[in-house]
């Protein structure tokens, strides 16, 4: 599998995945508000969501560099 010449390991997928996840998390507040009537203050929600997402990105980055050292 790793010998496949077409396979190129990139972090492009991480970027795209992160952006798609960010959009999903962003839309989640709309879903809560429109469908469930839960009004979450944007002033609280967006900073917290951003912090969680950035945390995930940092963690992913750290894990990947550990993985590549072991590999």
């Amino acid at each position, binding site marked *: *599998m*790793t010998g*496949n010449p*077409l*396979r*190129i390991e*990139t*972090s*492009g*997928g991480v*970027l*795209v*995945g992160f*952006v*798609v996840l*960010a*959009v999903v998390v*962003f*839309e989640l507040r*709309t879903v*809560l*508000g*429109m469908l469930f*009537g*839960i*009004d*979450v203050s*944007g002033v609280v929600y967006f900073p917290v969501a951003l912090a969680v997402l950035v945390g995930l990105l940092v963690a992913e980055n750290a894990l990947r560099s550990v993985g590549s050292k072991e590999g």
Partner: protein
Amino acid sequence: MSTGSGAATFVDRYPEEASIVRQAFFVAFVAFGLGALFGVIQALHRTDILRFIPSTDYYTVLTAHGVLLVIVFTIFFLVGLFQWAITRSFDRPVEDIRITKAWLALMSVGSVVTGVTILLGFVDEVGISADVLFTFYAPLQAHPLFYAGLAVFLVGTWIAGADWFRSWLAWNAEHPDDRIPLQAFVVLTTMLMWYIATIGVAVAVLFFLLPWSLGLIETVNPLLTRTLFWFFGHPVVYFWLMPAYLLWYTVLPKIAGGRLFSDPLARVVFVLFLLLSTPVGIHHQYLDPGIAESFKFIAMTNTMFLLLPSLLTAFTVVASVEHGARQRGGTGLFGWLRALPWRDPAFTGMMLAGLMFAAGGFSGMINAGMNINYLVHNTLWVPGHFHLTVGTAVALTMMAGTYWLWPQLTNRRLYSRPIGLLQVVVWFGGMALMSNAMHVSGLYGIPRRTAEPQYQGFDFSTAFGSVAELNVQLAIGGTLLFVSALLFLANLAFSWGNPTTSGLGQTLPPALSGPDDSPRVLDNMRLWAAIALVLVALAYALPLGAIVADSGLFGPGGDAYPVTVVLNSVAVTAERLTASVGATLADVGGVLEVIR
């Protein structure tokens, strides 16, 4: 993409045709840049974040934004892409390059005339304006040159279609037993759909609106011209979409590292679009008085069935991409996603466009629901919807496709792939913000197409958050989109400075399940065109007949409402306009020379 397969590029093999494609793309991208600028002005203006034009000029901006983006940008890109697809897939030069140049010139002249007429709305002294928006509903009346330019543009597209059918006939004479190549199949079915669709707008413009604006007839029937507009107005959205589908079906699988899953199913999809695109236009008129509920019901049913080809496309495209991922060594139920070339802006752009198209499809299903439509009709929900479809599925795919196609047309590498990737990702994020804000605002009843949706007598009540917060979202989203548009244009402009390189050519692999697996009847263009016409007649003969029977071909009376008072005599304005059009054409001509 950065390393070519070493094959000859399109421009190596067909330099004259490549020049045509480049020129068409050039016009498209100029319109795109202007349209994007007008877009961000609106996003900031209507949300009251930043207002630097008078609100009366907002409608000039809105008309220009609509016409430049969904008529000039999309359709010039389409003709460029289709010319490439026809030449490439038949593997033969155009029959007569003069004809090809002629239709491109006609389309350009028409666009410039209409575009200049719209933009003169900013200059009150000239007394020419076309602030009638993209839909130009009578009895609001634009300057005659607005309609005339549109007519010239349409004639150009008709000749373009004829040019491609001529290529098909010539190819067919030499390959009588071959199946039509898939790309050419897309072009031919799409153009048949276009011929049928443009009947509506051509009749509206040539028989009613143009003579009326020239004073040759006194009145028009506003419901009739409106219905004729939507006869054209819905299939035109599929006309925008088909270039994106062409790229998704024939280029995306290759970039993903695989092959198209099924060629026969692709043909079925495009035939369905030809058949069902037009007899649905009345779904834009669910709330129109004077059209019986039963006709609206027929349009609703047809619209729902029009979901089918797009749902089939979702399957085929995802299956093709998954096949590509597994060819690249991807494994697992979802693990194959990691094996895809996410760093390639062409690939990522098309995938994100497809993802947003799914969301846009769902909001479109809401629009199509006759009864739910009452809640969202003409609210900001509707622009929220079509910025996902034409504004992302189509526009972002076109940009992504350009990243792949540009080296084939110029023998030059793209200036920067990382900037390209950033650009498509910013578009996706910006559109998520803007479109979400628009959809939610629409549910609160905030109308579309208005400079100041802030009213004296009442406030909009919200289910959560606040209108102010939605406005900020919309403005940030719109600004990000504008930044993304600038990144795209700059990346392309800098690419022009790259040295020419040989060996950038790319080939497109055949489908896993080839055309020979499908019945030959799918290639019978005459048959499908005939069925499409019958369906259109069934859907439209009675409603149009009823409208004419109720209030006559020219309506029950009523005045024309020119969007500006014409201050000067027609002769003087015509003279001034000729001068300014002439100057603009000279500029365009000069730039086209450089591109060539």
